[in-house]
């Protein structure tokens, strides 16, 4: 379904700011798998999602989605297969346009856009029906501009837009990190509903250990631009937030050890 074969990406190569963000990520996903991605800051979680979305082209390796090699596809072309929700709630919607206009834009994700009337009268009922599934009362405000909505409302709409046409791959990039706790819960519930209803192949990055242990049927932990742990099946279901925190702690200790060992060697020999 999705095959990521040893992809590498280095930002600002051969400069003092060089960042080796992805250092050979391998990952294979079966259709309908819901994968939760966790990792320390700078571990390459978001970079991995951006590599899949086509925000940049990877230096090495290949990405095969649904039997098609999309490694060299530009971002807008991948949109025909990939739906995305961004970390920033303001990134996923056009603020000066109305809710209805935004949804209609999403309803043609990845398709040709011609001179047909965008907001036909007969689609309004369909818009209302699907917006009401968000349980936010937005179905009565279809003609309000997006800019007048809260971050949580906008993020819920972005989720609806990303999944409007069933995407082959859904990418959720810490999409509740910027929301207040109540709204974050609501958006997470909506995400789970949509993913399980449409059986979407999903990658979700999160910093919440609670979400990571409750959601999904596979969990990967990234570190230094590669996959460090990969849990699935019963092993994934047994994981509790405390277990995950312990894993983070051991990673941190290993890091410290590297640092102090290097320091010791430096003192002794340099």
């Amino acid at each position, binding site marked *: 379904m999705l095959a990521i074969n040893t992809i590498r990406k280095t930002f600002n190569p051969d400069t003092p700011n060089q960042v080796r963000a992805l250092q050979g990520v391998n990952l294979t996903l079966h259709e309908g798998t819901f994968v939760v991605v966790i990792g320390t800051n700078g571990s390459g979680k978001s970079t991995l999602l951006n590599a899949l979305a086509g925000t940049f082209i990877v230096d090495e390796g290949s990405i095969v989605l649904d039997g098609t090699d999309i490694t060299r596809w530009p*971002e807008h*072309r991948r*949109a025909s297969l990939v739906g995305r929700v961004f970390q920033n709630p303001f990134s996923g*919607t056009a603020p*000066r*346009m109305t809710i209805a*206009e935004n949804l209609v834009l999403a309803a043609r994700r990845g*398709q040709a*856009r011609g*001179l047909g009337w965008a907001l036909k009268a007969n689609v309004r009922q369909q818009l209302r029906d699907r917006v009401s599934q968000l349980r936010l009362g937005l179905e009565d405000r279809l003609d309000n501009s997006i800019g007048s909505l809260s971050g949580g409302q906008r993020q819920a709409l972005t989720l609806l837009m990303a999944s409007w046409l069933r995407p082959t791959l859904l990418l959720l990039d810490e999409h509740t990190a910027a929301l207040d706790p109540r709204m974050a819960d609501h958006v997470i519930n909506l995400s789970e509903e949509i993913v399980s209803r449409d059986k979407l192949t999903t990658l979700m990055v999160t910093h919440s250990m609670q979400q990571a242990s409750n959601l999904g049927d596979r969990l990967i932990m990234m570190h230094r631009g590669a996959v460090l742990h990969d849990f699935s099946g019963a092993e994934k279901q047994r994981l509790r937030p405390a277990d995950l925190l312990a894993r983070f702690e051991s990673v941190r200790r290993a890091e410290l050890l590297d640092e102090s060992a290097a320091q010791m060697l430096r003192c002794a020999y340099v």
Partner: protein
Amino acid sequence: MTLLIGALTVGLILSLLALGVFISFRIFEFSDITADGSITLGAAVAAVLLVHGVHPVIATAAAFFAGTVAGTLTGIIHTRFGINKLLSGILVMTALYSTNLHVMGRSNVPLLDRRTLATQAEHAGAWLFGSTADLRVWGWDVAMRDATMLVLALTTAATVGLLIYVFFRTNLGTAMQAAGDNPQMIRALGVNVENMIVLGLAVSNGLVALSGALLAQYQGFADVQMGIGMIVWGLASIIIGEALVGVRQLGLIITGAVMGSVLFRLLVAIALRGGLNPNDLKLVTAVFVFVALVLPGLVTRLTSRRRRQAEAQ
């Protein structure tokens, strides 16, 4: 009366410029100074074709087309070569100055005794009313040429305004709006934002060139200097329009841009009649646009400060 009709006609002709600037400035937040060159390009292309006896409608259409080419160039320079928006416009505007001189062969092309849209409209008017005599409108004598040109300008502005409105209600048009509003979002929905910018600038400069072509035919000449400061003129029209009708609805904004252009031209005509030195016109326009851009922010700051002071007391 002639003064009023003249101001209305020029205002309506330049409203096409305002609508073009609306697309670049308000949809893409692209201060596209190409407009200064493409309005002259439109005038030059139309004038030269008319001098060679080409049918006025074809000459005007060719001017529109030439403008779209200029806009496409600016768009490609910006999107494909990553050159800053303002600089892309400046490069094409500068290049257009020489191009316009080449097109015209000299710095000024008069259209005296040529068949233009103005004379065509006059003929149509004469045929309609059965004579070429002056018309009497509400007790005023109006020259047939002035009256028919006003009708022509009004029809063109209304048609173009309607077309733009309809365009921004289509799938392609909403995608273009979104490309200006939130490029990241619309890219994730499968739209090539770069192509949208190029297309938008092409349409924008096409309209500006169309405005130039009509202006040349109305005033009876094309001049290589006629484009200087025209972008600021377009901005002034849009700002006045937004002050008149607000910025909420697309249909209102488009109507506002046309109204703003006409009102601004009327104000200029009145000021010139009242003794404003024509040499100061561009200075006054620039100051006006500056004040109009700064004023809203200044007012909010002052009122919030006053409110804070009131609360403190």
